[in-house]
């Protein structure tokens, strides 16, 4: 028997906006999230007693969305500490954690956000080399700066934002190493929507006031451990230098968090927000609303509503940002030394990849090279392996496969089966 509810996975901007639209149209919605509270990556909520670091605009956006959700009352049920295990071809969904179940919802909305791209570098697997996003989550949760010296490296607007946040918390980063030269595109920058400009200017002002060195057109080429700290080798436009840090945060942009998300023909499955196309917070909110309304219309047999103009605006702004941050990552990738770990899960290196010979097939990369075969299912290596193996014509390293994430056998066996129950 079908469950009368629509299942939304991800209680961030896109998921909750979709849930509010669907509930408003009269649907019963179950929203699940792996975290302990709604918020997603952007609106990660502070621990009880910690102060929120959200800007007034961010705080307003979140309060407004939560008000929309609360207005729907019991039509929206939110279950946290609950993980989405996947959907199978019969339309059955597996949830584990607090709301563990096998259920067959009316429709499935996947709004599981983005994840960071991090280009492999020698030493990137050392402890306390993390993604920039990991530090951001930590800061938002505890509202405290991390202990010790922090170095930010890679590429993308997040590095400046996170650097400014660290300044605000009284712990300026040692330096920011940016591969692109974002300040040498004034015309592109001026064409960005005003909120982007205002935010960037505020970040830069903070960084300048705190005299944080920002190297552009520069790359972190190697990390090693030295006398209890991390030592970063930096190649700048003017030569190389070494910087010591206690924590190094890497970030090379964001991409949809879509590994292992399979579709099912047994029910409507929608991807909304960053997990459909990584365009940032404003777009995720707009996409969630539009997608929720479109799904409600589809379920009611009504024509699809007009596309969201806000979404188109954000897509344009993100395309501009991408041009501002464009740089030659292919050269950096091609120059990686043989001992660089590419697959973090199974410690497979550049040399292991090269040993497969020229133009290996996807099956050879997986079976013989064991790339993309580890527990993360290639989330952090597949794109790079594809580009290293066939620089001219990268092939996807695999088809989406269940599960969406590693699932304990015990939890898989214990999830209550709600698919055979009767619903009113």
């Amino acid at each position: 028997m079908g469950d009368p509810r629509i299942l939304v996975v991800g209680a961030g901007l896109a998921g909750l906006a979709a849930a509010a639209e669907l509930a408003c149209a009269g649907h019963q919605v179950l929203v699940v999230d792996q975290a302990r509270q709604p918020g997603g990556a952007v609106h990660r909520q502070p621990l009880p007693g910690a102060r929120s670091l959200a800007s007034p605009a961010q705080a307003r956006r979140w309060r407004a969305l939560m008000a929309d959700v609360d207005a729907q009352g019991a039509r929206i049920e939110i279950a946290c500490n609950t993980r989405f295990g996947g959907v199978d071809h019969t339309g059955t969904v597996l949830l584990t954690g607090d709301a563990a179940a096998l259920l067959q919802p009316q429709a499935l909305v996947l709004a599981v956000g983005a994840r960071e791209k991090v280009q492999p570098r020698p030493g990137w697997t050392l402890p306390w080399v993390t993604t920039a996003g990991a530090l951001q989550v930590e800061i938002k949760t505890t509202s405290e700066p991390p202990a010790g010296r922090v170095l930010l490296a890679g590429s993308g607007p997040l590095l400046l934002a996170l650097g400014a946040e660290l300044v605000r918390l009284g712990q300026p980063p040692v330096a920011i190493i940016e591969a692109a030269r974002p300040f040498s595109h004034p015309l592109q920058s001026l064409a960005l929507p005003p909120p982007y400009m205002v935010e960037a200017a505020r970040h830069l002002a903070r960084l300048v006031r705190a005299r944080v060195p920002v190297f552009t057109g520069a790359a972190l080429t190697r990390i090693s451990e030295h006398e209890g700290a991390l030592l970063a080798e930096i190649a700048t436009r003017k030569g190389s230098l070494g910087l010591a840090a206690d924590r190094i945060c890497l970030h090379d942009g964001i991409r949809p968090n879509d590994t292992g998300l399979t579709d099912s023909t047994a029910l409507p499955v929608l991807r909304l927000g960053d997990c459909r196309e990584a365009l940032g917070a404003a777009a995720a909110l707009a996409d969630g609303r539009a997608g929720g309304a479109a799904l409600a219309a589809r379920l009611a047999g009504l024509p699809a509503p007009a596309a969201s103009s806000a979404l188109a605006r954000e897509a344009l702004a993100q395309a501009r940002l991408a041009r501002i941050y464009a740089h030659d990552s292919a050269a950096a990738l091609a120059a990686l030394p043989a001992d660089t770990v590419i697959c973090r899960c199974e410690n497979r290196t550049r040399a292991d990849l090269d040993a497969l010979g020229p133009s290996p097939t996807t099956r050879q990369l997986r079976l013989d090279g064991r790339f993309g075969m580890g527990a993360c299912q290639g989330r952090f290596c597949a794109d790079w392996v594809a580009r290293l193996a066939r620089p001219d014509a990268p092939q996807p390293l695999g088809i989406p496969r269940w599960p969406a994430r590693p699932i304990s056998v015990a939890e898989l066996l214990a999830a209550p089966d709600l698919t055979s129950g009767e619903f009113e």
Partner: protein
Amino acid sequence: MAKAQDHDVLIAGAGIVGASVAWHLAEAGLKVAVADATGPAAAASGASDGAVSVASKKPGVMARLATGSLLYTRELAARGLLGPAYAARPSYVFGAGEDEMAAIDALIAKLAALAGPVRVCADGGPKLLPGAGAGIERLVVLAGEGHMPGHKAVRAYLAHPRITPLWPARINAFAADDSGVEVDLGGKPLRVGVLVAALGTSTPALFPWLPVLPRAGQLIVTDAGPVGALPGSLTAAAYLLAKTEGPGREALPPVVIDPLGTGQFLIGSSREEHADPTRVDFATLRHLLARAAAAYPALTERRVIRAFAGIRAAVSDGLPIVGPMPGSPRVIVATGFEGDGICLSALIGREVAGMVRGASPGAEWAADIAALAPARFDPARQECVA
């Protein structure tokens, strides 16, 4: 005068059977090319559990061929070729309830009749295997079988210097004449002396009258733990029933727990009539895992990192198809192993290479190989019979 040939032999299909045929021919001095629509070990060979098992084969032809192939695989491993791919290991068969007890009795009788390299070392309860759980009523321990991941064997075979790889390239059509075979390989014409088609589930694309059907089996891969905790495969007797009696004949989940060299487990498997490698369902996965965990409780603490359907090439009468096509001695097929290719590939490769070179089969295998001939599906012959 015969037209110039690009290769002495073209092997269509870079799975374990095609790779073994290619190696045997190359070793005999022939110029061999291997074409595959995807690449090496892209289908069943890459998705297999790697069991080189006599126990799981149907009594009769299959069990005899498996015995011969097991011995020959060991020989190729000792000679170095399959050394990195093959490893001897014990195997365990367990059961509960009447049907499975009978299946275990039949297994013991079968192995005794074969008097081959696989023997029963112990027949008792779960205490025979450290870590075995309460889901096991009876357990037999077998010695003499082995493990060989398909992709490793394929890689070893295809590394022969006289083999030319041609992939990705699909064979669109072929036409045999008295002196050779014209092949349309991805739009490119190719002339070869003999075509060997080891195409697995793709067989009907070139040989529509051969009843080869996809038979999917859901497989589960866990994360890695201590290597060697389970020394060999742990197979439910229901799996033997499913293989010998056909799918759906077993009352209990036909589960096989296979420890991999990485410390992971590969757990299978259902038998379903479709060809979609992504098609899995929670009901079947739970059905298989529940029995697997009852038989080997440490599995409960593992995590599933991947599940998919391996697609085997099954034949309507349950036997592989091996031999020259009726009326076209220069076209030889070797297909339809339904997961048994890992075990049979060594011997089949040698025998098919012999057919290509016009050698008469060794007396020991002539009758069993003849039982696999494609002529049994020859439409002309069937009309006559009718």
